[in-house]
C-alpha cells in the first residue's frame, strides 16, 4: 500500500483519531491527506494534538477538533488552529486527557460509556452536553460522577517503527496506539520498515505488538514522523517545527511552507 492509496480510505465527514506528538504521529500521511482532499473531518486527539492537527486545519479539511490541548510544544501555540478557533471556523470539543482515554476504553470494551472522576465544576463539562453526570449507583446517595460516552473513530492513524509481513505492528509501550486501534473502525499505520521476523514469534516482541487483527493497512514511510521524532528511532527536529511555527503565523506563510515540503521525502513501498 502506498500513502496515496492509504489516504483514499479517508472520506469526507469521517472521524480520525490521531496520537500525541511523542507517541508516533504519521506526518507522512498529513501531506497525503491534504493532497487527497477529503474534508469536513472530525479530529479526535489522543489525548492532545500538534503539528498534524494544525496542518489539517490550515488546509481547510477540518470541521471539528476534540482534544485536551493543541500546541507545538516548545515552538508555542498552534497558529492555524488558534486562528481558526478565534474566527469560529471549527467546532471545538474541549476535553481533558483521561476523558479522551475513557471514551476509547469504553469502545474497546464494547461498553456505552466509562465513568470518570474529576471534571465536575469545570467549564469543560459545561460545554460538553454529550457528557452526563449521574449519582454513583453503588453509593448510599449522592456521589456524582461523570460518564464519558464511547468513542468509535472511523479511522485511527499513526506511525510506528516496524511491521512484519503478517501485518503485525510493533508499538512498544505506546499503549495509546493500541487503544486507538481497538476503538476504531479502521486502523492505518505507516512504519519505518517491514521486518522478516514474525513479531508474535517471541514473547519479548509480542508484548509490544499490535496484532494484525486490528490493523487495516500498512504503508512504509521512512522518517514518517518527521519533523516529530519517533521513540527509539530518531529525535524531534525542533528547528523544523520552529520554522513551521514562524511560517504558519499567516495563511500565506502556511501555504508557502506546505508547498515547499519535500514531496518525495517518504519512499513509498508496496506492503
Amino acid at each position, binding site marked *: 500500500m502506498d500513502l496515496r492509496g492509504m489516504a483514499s480510505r479517508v472520506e469526507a465527514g469521517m472521524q480520525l483519531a490521531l496520537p500525541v506528538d511523542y507517541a508516533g504521529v504519521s506526518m507522512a500521511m498529513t501531506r497525503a491527506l491534504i493532497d487527497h482532499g477529503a474534508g469536513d473531518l472530525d479530529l479526535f486527539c489522543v489525548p492532545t494534538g500538534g503539528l498534524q492537527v494544525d496542518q489539517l486545519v490550515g488546509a481547510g479539511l477540518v470541521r471539528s477538533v476534540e482534544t485536551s490541548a493543541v500546541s507545538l510544544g516548545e515552538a508555542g501555540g498552534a497558529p492555524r488552529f488558534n486562528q481558526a*478557533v478565534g474566527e469560529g471556523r471549527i467546532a471545538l470539543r*474541549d476535553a481533558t486527557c483521561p476523558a479522551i482515554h475513557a471514551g476509547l476504553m469504553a469502545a474497546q470494551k464494547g461498553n456505552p460509556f466509562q465513568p470518570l472522576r474529576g471534571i465536575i*465544576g*469545570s467549564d469543560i463539562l459545561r460545554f460538553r452536553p454529550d457528557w452526563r453526570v449521574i449519582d454513583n449507583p453503588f453509593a448510599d446517595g449522592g456521589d456524582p460522577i461523570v460518564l464519558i460516552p464511547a468513542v468509535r473513530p472511523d479511522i485511527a492513524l499513526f506511525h510506528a517503527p516496524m511491521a512484519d509481513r503478517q501485518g503485525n505492528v510493533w508499538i512498544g509501550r505506546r499503549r495509546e496506539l493500541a487503544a486507538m486501534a481497538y476503538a476504531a473502525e479502521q486502523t492505518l499505520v505507516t512504519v519505518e520498515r517491514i521486518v522478516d521476523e514474525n513479531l508474535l514469534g517471541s514473547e519479548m516482541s509480542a508484548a509490544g505488538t499490535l496484532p494484525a487483527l486490528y490493523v487495516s493497512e500498512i504503508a512504509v514511510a521512512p522518517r514518517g514522523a518527521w519533523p516529530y521524532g519517533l521513540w527509539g528511532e530518531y529525535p524531534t527536529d525542533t528547528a523544523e517545527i520552529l520554522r513551521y511555527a514562524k511560517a504558519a503565523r499567516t495563511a500565506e506563510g502556511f501555504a508557502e511552507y506546505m508547498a515547499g515540503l519535500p514531496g518525495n521525502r517518504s519512499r513509498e513501498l508496496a506492503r
Partner: protein
Amino acid sequence: MTDVHPREVLIASIARLLDGVRHVAVGASSPIPAAGAMLLRALKKRAGAPPVRISILGSVEHNFFTNGSAELFDCAGQGRVDAFFLGGGQIDGQANINLVGIGDYPASAPRWPGSFGSAYLYFVVPRVILFREEHSPRVFVEKVDFISAPGTSEAGVHRTGGPVALLTGKALFSFDKSRPGFTLESLHPGHDLNEVREATGFAFRHADQPGQTELPDPATLVLLRGQIMDELSETYPEFANQMRREVCA
C-alpha cells in the same frame, strides 16, 4: 559562592513544598518544578530517608510508565501520585485555573493550548502546587474566563486532591480551601508587599510585615549547582545551560 539566583529560590521552595512525597509527577515543559523535585530526591538520599520517585511526563529516561499516556491518570486516580504542578494563563483567588484562553469561549482569543489533564489531576492528586513565574494582574485575576479545573468542589463531590500552595516569581502563598482563598506566606528577596498587591488581581490574606522566603543554605546550593543541574540537563538542556551561565555571571 555567588548570590542566590531568583530561580534557585524557586527551586529550593519547591523542594520544601514537596517534603514528604513518595512520588511526584512533573510536566515535560516544567524545568523548575523538575529541578525542585530532583533537589528533594538528592537531599532525601543524602539524609538516608525513603526514596523520592519522579516521573517526568514525555521523557523516556525519567518515565517508568509502560501503559501509554493513560497510565499517569490511572496511577493518580488510585492515589499513587502524591504531588503534581499546575499553572495556567489565568489563576483566580479561588484557585480556579484557566488553560484554555481569554474571552468568550469557544471563540477564545488568544486561545491557549487547552486543559490537558488538569480537570482530573486537580481532583485526585493530594498536593497540587500551582506554579507560575510571571506574577502579574493579567495572570492573577479576580475570576478566570474559563474554568479548566476548579480550585474547590462542593461537599459530596469526590475530591482527594487540590491546591495547597501557589509559587510565583515574587512570592509564596498557601491555599485554604475552607474559605476559600490564598494567604501570602513569604516574599522572595527583592520584592515587597505593595508590589505583590499591585501585581495580584485578587485579594489575599497577609501579615502586616510578611517574612522573606527561606533561601537555600550553602550545602544545598552546592548540590543544586552541581548534581542537580547535571541531572536536569538530561531532560532540559537549554534551561540547565541558561542557569549555569547566569549563576556564573
